[in-house]
């Protein structure tokens, strides 16, 4: 099961999906585009725990976290 984690006021919302299910994958890609289009940043981490940003939907990503746009405080 792959997971998209979206930070929000509840702490976070997790969307689990089966990457082998074509419809679920399509929904996940749509969610990715909607979130990044709304200003969210998407990030993944590799096996060593290093984080990197992703600009386009990666169907192989096990876990993607989304956080809202950064602003100066």
């Amino acid at each position: 099961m792959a997971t998209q984690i979206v930070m929000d006021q509840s702490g976070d919302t997790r969307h689990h999906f089966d990457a082998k299910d074509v419809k679920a994958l399509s929904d996940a890609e749509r969610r990715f585009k909607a979130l990044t289009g709304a200003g969210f940043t998407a990030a993944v981490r590799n096996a060593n725990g290093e984080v990197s940003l992703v600009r386009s939907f990666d169907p192989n990503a096990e876990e993607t976290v989304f956080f809202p746009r950064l602003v100066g405080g």
Partner: protein
Amino acid sequence: MAIGLLKMAATCVVRPIHHLIRLVQLAQSWRQAQYEGRAARGNTLLREWLSPEQKAQFDTIKSFDVVGCNTGKSYRIQYGVSANVVELDDAGRPTIGWCFVPTGNLVPGDVMLAQKIALEADERRALAVARQFLVPQLPSRLSTVP
């Protein structure tokens, strides 16, 4: 007669006020419990994404250090939701503060994770939006992790 009226008036006024105070206290407790639940979720997510060293630091001092991907500089992310990132010098002393946060009124764990990802994966962009602030200069033995 007068005493009876006074007692009745006191009952009519005091009891509703007492109930109102109790309701407000219950609402405050409920809000606090809600916030603590959200904060706990944020801390759980943060800990899932920290490196083993960062997790050990966070569990000990509620802060952890990251290295900027572009400059190689070290930053300490402290528990909080604003003005909680400080740049460290080679001796681990805070030199300057950087304030940048994700929008949306997030809990501390979420804010800290967003700051970690931003500094480790896109430091320049994070600093471009950040505002600098002065940090108190502490003696080095107090400002470094034990």
